[in-house]
């Protein structure tokens, strides 16, 4: 009876994962989907603690398990509730690393308890170990990079070195399969350290702007590691859950790459930023035109259609709410206001939507890039707030630019462009932006939040 209840809890768990993921892909039902999957997870965990049997033995050490779950719940809950919305990508990366570490530890303990299993058993254990460790160390580096604790590091030899390292890992793995006595039990530690090293070196050279793609990729890695655990214990819910995330995560990674018009291989091997000396955009002596607050306020107040292009700078300055105030002031004057959202604005696809939704900006005002580009011709003023790479015309017309081919918001089709920026520094991808020198462009320098606050006051008076 108890094994039936266990399998039933796993079946229900698996079904909630599928329905949950499906619901997560529609804005109206997303929240419900997340809660559904969480409930299914809770059920599967409870089922395991209550009903799991191995060779007729029930789960022991229940006190310790409950304590560990308790610690994890409290810490995880607090961390998730306290994190700022801007730091969300790091948090996801961190949690992903925890899952990877968990999978790796399971493999370590399994090997420790049954070092003499057959070759296929060992293969599953080792693959879980390798993928889990890569996911863990890679996620930690991605976390550090997004949190700006770790700088980009790239070198030509690193790509070659990484490929060699990967080859060594597979050779060690194959040797351990064919003749386990070559390395003896220490093979576990060899594979563990090589995989941890590979995870670090794999993420290290990848530019900060590509980090979301990497996190998504590592996310699907952890899914695979969980699935290997499922194989190990003949556990259906781990298997379906893991594989589902593995394949969905891979597709999501590809979708993100497509949004930036780059291939996955290009993201992993060709690192962004850095060099780029061949770009035609660096012409030197170009001058920028500045505009003051009053003129900006008047320009906007008497326009009939204003578009706001928000970028990560807006989020860092926590200026979403004031941005929403500006929108309300302008609307009160009969100006039509909309937001043009680039798919990768912020630090992750969809990140900007979350940030604006946090500031109560109504959902229909957020226009996706393709639709926004169609509306540019009829737009009088575009205000670019803290965005840079996503409005860079080089992506359209400079084949030498590292972001050439990436779809961008074509703000230069509008009648006036105002770029709000802290300084002339280049964007996250570290490349020059000719938009700032464009004939239609006027720069409004200053901190995004302060400038917007003053602008709102000016608009009130205008």
């Amino acid at each position, binding site marked *: 009876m108890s094994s039936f209840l266990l399998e039933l809890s796993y079946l229900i768990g698996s079904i909630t994962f599928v329905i949950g993921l499906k619901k997560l892909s529609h804005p109206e039902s997303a929240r419900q989907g997340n809660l559904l999957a969480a409930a299914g997870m809770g059920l599967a965990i409870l089922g395991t603690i209550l009903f*799991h049997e191995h060779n007729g033995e029930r*789960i022991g050490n229940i006190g310790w398990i409950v304590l560990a779950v308790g610690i994890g719940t409290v810490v*995880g809950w607090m961390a*998730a509730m306290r994190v700022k919305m801007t730091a969300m990508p790091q948090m996801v990366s961190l949690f992903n690393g925890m899952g990877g570490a968990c999978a790796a530890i399971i493999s370590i303990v399994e090997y420790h308890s049954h070092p003499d299993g057959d070759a296929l058993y060992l293969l599953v254990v080792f693959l879980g170990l390798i993928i889990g460790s890569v996911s863990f160390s890679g996620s930690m580096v991605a976390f550090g990079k997004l949190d700006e604790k770790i700088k980009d590091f790239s070198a030509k030899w690193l790509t070659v070195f990484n490929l060699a390292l990967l080859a060594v890992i597979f050779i060690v793995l194959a040797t351990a399969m064919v003749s386990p006595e070559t390395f003896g039990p220490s093979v576990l530690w060899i594979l563990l350290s090589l995989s941890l090293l590979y995870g670090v070196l794999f993420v290290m050279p990848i530019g900060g702007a590509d980090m979301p793609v990497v996190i998504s990729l590592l996310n699907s890695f952890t899914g695979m590691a969980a699935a290997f655990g499922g194989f190990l214990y003949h556990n259906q819910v781990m298997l379906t859950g*893991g594989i589902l*995330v593995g394949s969905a*995560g891979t597709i999501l990674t590809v979708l*993100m790459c497509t949004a930036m018009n780059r291939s996955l291989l290009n993201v992993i091997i060709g690192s962004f930023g850095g060099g780029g000396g061949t770009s035609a955009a660096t012409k030197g002596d170009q001058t920028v035109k500045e505009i003051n607050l009053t003129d900006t306020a008047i320009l906007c107040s008497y326009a009939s259609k204003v578009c706001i292009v928000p970028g990560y700078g807006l989020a860092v300055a926590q200026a979403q709410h004031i941005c929403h105030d500006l929108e309300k002031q302008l609307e009160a004057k009969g100006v039509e206001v909309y937001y043009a959202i680039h798919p990768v604005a912020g630090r992750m696809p969809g990140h900007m939507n979350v940030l604006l939704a946090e500031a109560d900006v109504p959902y229909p005002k957020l226009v996706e890039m393709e639709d926004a580009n169609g509306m540019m011709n009829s737009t009088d003023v575009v205000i670019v707030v803290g965005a840079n790479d996503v409005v860079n015309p080089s992506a359209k017309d400079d084949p030498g630019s590292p972001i050439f081919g990436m779809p961008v918001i074509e703000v230069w089709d509008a009648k006036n462009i105002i770029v709000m920026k802290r300084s002339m520094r280049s964007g996250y991808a570290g490349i020059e932006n000719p938009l700032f020198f464009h004939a239609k462009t006027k720069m409004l320098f200053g901190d995004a939040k302060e400038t917007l606050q003053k602008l709102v006051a000016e608009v009130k008076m205008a």
Partner: protein
Amino acid sequence: MDALASFFLENQHMVYIVVLSIFLGIEVISNVPAILHTPLMSGANAIHGVVIIGAIIVMGHASSDDYLALVLGFFAVVLGTLNVVGGFVVTNRMLEMFKKKK
């Protein structure tokens, strides 16, 4: 080759689950609006926290004198729970903001 064939025959149903789940994962995710990429990634991140079940099994069947298994198992359960709870809570926080106003 023999080992592989017997592995396949023994674990046939698991192989089917893997293959069908791959297609299911692809099918479920396609046609997602870009605005939901982040919450979706975060939600998927929470779901692979299902690895915690493996950790509970390891911990639950470790004999009481096997300290390596007990200590590592304990850590694995903590980390797995972090992944699950943190993942779902973060996703929920993000999605809370998409709620329709009024």
